[in-house]
């Protein structure tokens, strides 16, 4: 089950939810870096006022040990400072990792198996007491406790002794692989090289928790804040939350968060139609409202783009995610590379993108890595299908494979109305393959059934619509779970659907993990993606684009390519 939550939670964390994805023809997608622009109302941002966040999903399990976030999350990041954090900047600049509690992003040694951090001076909790390295160690240890499960699985895999450690409640001694030689220094000792450690150190598990104030499972109700806001109300497991300014947070030690509003009200459990309607009307407190998890749907987008005032209030973001067709070669006829190639040629990315909401909500892609340099994006198109598919080439390949009389296959999808794995996308694939003489039967499953079936090693269908998002902007968490042969999970959630276990690929993954220079590593990930792509183990379809409304009084809208979502810590309402 371990990666099961990776997808679902990652999606929640990055506020993807009902992601309406659409796309442009491959050639005219936006260029790297200029895609996500800031925006918002005119005038310099001022302190004060109340910001309202209208969301569908509640801030469940608001405990730093239990949150599954990318880069510390959006709202959690207002309360929890972490060793490192996301750079709060527009576009590609926002995929960089920067120091937060630590003075730098970490000093690697021993082939990136040891990571040392020094804390800044003058760090305080909301009650004014100092933050120490022992509190960060304790915060990490808490996440190993069974009662505080939910976080990302990496700590358990990476830290020496992490696979057997049961958390500080059962094992008071703590983890030996985390050392705190003094109050300002913390050292992590890993089993293997992890050049991406600084990116993961932005997760809430690296937030300090004062041992004396730890209330176990109840900690989420009133966590001790290290960030610019403290939790004054948390009702209905994160459904209604009120955050107020933390007087002991100092801007001098925190260059990333701005904290303009005095107060933040989080209201969740709303439907996307309600959220978008309230944001577009913007009456009363909704004029100073934003959403971190609700996209504009295709129909809403058509409406908004026709209205200049509304169109100016749409933030566009790119999150590192790819929707693709996954093949399971254990099921015939997908064991035959020619059949997989034929399907790759036959796919009509224009109709798939339209099904996902059109070119403003999805960009067609032929690479598995999303169109973002920090993730290692390297263009390739091994089976050029053009914008509309190459049925003739597909038929030719099918003939060579011995299916001259056509082929009947089953495509598994979910019935969730998410414009990603939903029936719309499945029927678009079906219509395109029909042109190439492939009859596609659709197997639509209820969302939970679908999740269970596509991740079960035994039951994995031969062909299904899948999507994969990055836990942090790097090629590692994108490629390794899906193509690393040692991550084939037989008794839990398996993401290596292709069952690829190639020693060359495995060795290259290990080699890149030793690199601590992100740009150099990105290049190698890109080359690896290009190489794996030759085997046609997936058919990359599109990358999502987020289009989200914000209220008319909202200023200083910053959308990074790390999250693709407007950053709550930057927003001003005065």
């Amino acid at each position, binding site marked *: 089950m371990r990666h099961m939550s990776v997808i679902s939670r990652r999606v929640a964390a990055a506020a993807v939810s009902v992601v*309406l994805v*659409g*796309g*442009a023809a491959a050639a005219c997608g936006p260029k790297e870096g200029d895609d996500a622009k800031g925006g918002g109302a005119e005038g310099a941002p001022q302190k004060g006022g109340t910001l309202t966040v209208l969301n569908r999903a509640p801030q469940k399990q608001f405990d730093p040990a239990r949150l599954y976030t990318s880069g510390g999350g959006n709202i959690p990041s207002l309360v929890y400072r972490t060793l490192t954090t996301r750079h709060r900047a527009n576009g590609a600049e926002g995929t960089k990792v920067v120091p937060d509690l630590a003075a730098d992003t970490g000093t690697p040694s021993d082939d990136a198996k040891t990571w040392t951090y020094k804390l800044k001076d003058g760090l305080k909790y909301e009650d004014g007491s100092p933050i120490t390295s022992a509190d960060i160690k304790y915060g990490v240890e808490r996440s190993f406790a069974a009662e505080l499960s939910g976080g990302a699985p990496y700590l358990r895999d990476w830290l020496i002794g992490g696979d057997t450690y049961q958390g500080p409640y059962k094992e008071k001694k703590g983890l030996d692989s985390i050392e705190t030689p003094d109050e300002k220094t913390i050292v992590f000792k890993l089993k293997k090289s992890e050049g991406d450690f600084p990116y993961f150190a932005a997760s809430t598990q690296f937030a300090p928790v004062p041992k004396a104030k730890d209330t176990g499972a109840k900690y989420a109700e009133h966590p001790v804040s290290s960030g610019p806001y403290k939790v004054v109300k948390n009702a209905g497991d994160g459904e209604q939350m009120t955050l107020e300014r933390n007087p002991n947070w100092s801007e001098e030690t925190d260059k990333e968060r701005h904290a303009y509003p005095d107060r933040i009200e989080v209201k969740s459990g709303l439907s996307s*139609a309600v959220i978008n309607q309230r944001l577009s009307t913007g009456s009363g407190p909704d004029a100073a409202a934003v959403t971190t998890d609700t996209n*504009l*749907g*295709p*129909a*809403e*987008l*058509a*409406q908004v*783009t*026709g209205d200049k005032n509304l169109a100016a209030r749409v933030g566009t973001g790119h999150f590192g995610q790819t929707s693709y067709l996954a093949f399971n070669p254990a099921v015939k006829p997908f064991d035959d590379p020619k059949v997989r190639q034929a399907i790759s040629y036959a796919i*009509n990315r*224009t*109709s798939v*993108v*339209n*099904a996902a*909401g*059109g*070119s*403003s*909500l999805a960009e067609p892609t032929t690479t598995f890595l999303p169109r973002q340099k920090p993730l290692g994006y390297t263009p390739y198109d091994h089976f050029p299908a053009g914008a*509309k598919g190459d049925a003739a080439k597909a038929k030719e390949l099918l003939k060579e494979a011995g299916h001259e009389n056509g082929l009947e296959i089953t495509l598994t999808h979910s*019935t969730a109305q998410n414009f990603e794995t939903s*029936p*719309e996308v*499945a*029927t*678009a694939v*079906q*219509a*395109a393959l*029909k042109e190439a003489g492939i009859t596609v039967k*659709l*197997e*639509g499953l*209820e969302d939970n059934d679908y999740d269970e079936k596509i991740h079960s090693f035994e039951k994995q269908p031969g062909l299904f619509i899948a999507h994969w998002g990055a836990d942090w902007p790097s090629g590692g968490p994108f490629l390794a779970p899906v193509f690393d042969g040692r991550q084939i999970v037989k008794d839990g959630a398996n993401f290596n659907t292709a069952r690829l276990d190639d020693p060359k690929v495995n060795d290259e993954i290990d080699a890149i993990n030793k690199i601590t220079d992100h740009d150099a590593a990105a290049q190698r990930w890109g080359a690896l993606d290009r190489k794996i792509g030759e085997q046609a183990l997936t058919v990359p379809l599109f990358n999502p684009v987020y289009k989200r409304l914000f209220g008319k009084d909202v200023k200083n809208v910053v959308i990074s390519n790390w999250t693709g979502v407007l950053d709550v810590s930057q927003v001003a309402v005065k």
Partner: protein
Amino acid sequence: MTTELLTTAEPEAGTAPASGPPQVWRRLRARKSALAAAAVLGLLVLLALAAPLLAAIEGQDPNAYHDTLVDSARGGVPFGDFGGISAEHWLGVEPGTGRDLFVRLVYGARVSLLVAVGATAVQILIGVGIGLAAALGNRLVESLLTHVTDVMVAMPLLVFAIALMAVVPADFPRPVLLAIAIGLLQWGGMARLVRAQTLSLMKLDFVSAARLTGGSTRRVARRELLPSLAAPVITYAAVLLPTNIVMEASMSFLGVGVKPPTPSWGHMLSTATTWFRADPMYVLLPALMLFVTTLAFTVLGDGVRAALDPREASRLRVGRGRRKARTSGAGGAA
């Protein structure tokens, strides 16, 4: 005038069963609204049957995508006015896919009508069977069947239908499955009605006479009760039909209806709801079809009920007489 007085006096207490089919037919024909409704339904059935022909005439396929007809950058809203109406696409195209709406609507009629008629047939079969058995059976059978019926009436249909759809193999034809599912779960009202009607019929002289002359329960049910039950059953079925169409729509809405890409009005309506501002045509078309069909069934059902009721029939004639008098008066003035 005397004849009219006689007819009004004739069916005093509704003691006798409705008169024979020819009279009923005559009374039905006299109701213009019922005739119009029947014509509309006939047209709809014709449309559904001729779907492939109509598609060929228009030159469109219900499942063919037309990427160039929708504005991808604006969420896939159709180019052109009124949802992209053109000489090639008579009622415009579907947003996002560019599939032809006219052909999808006529093919959708097949599913919607088939499910509605099929489900109603199942409901009549089960409802009449259970209702008769409950009224005629011994105390044990009666109380058992009455309680089962009560449970069926109280059951949350959608939840059970969804569960049922999940159990049945994926290959089973969905429209048939939908008809059976709705029919199997929604016969409670029909059973109650038939039981109550049968119990009141049993007290009437002609039934008593049949029993006294030695007719078996089965024979009495077949020869005496069933013909008399026709009126209420047909009336109620006319109410059930539109309910079942809406039920198919709501099942499709929840994703347990017919499978994509098969068009159905319910499914079209469910995907169209978000488009009501950006592309009103897309919402209006399936909504209008559902509205017209439901209205036609209701009006026809009302007509049949009236035609089967002798009292209603006589009132009808009085009304016609009055109207005639008024028009002649007006003519005189002119």
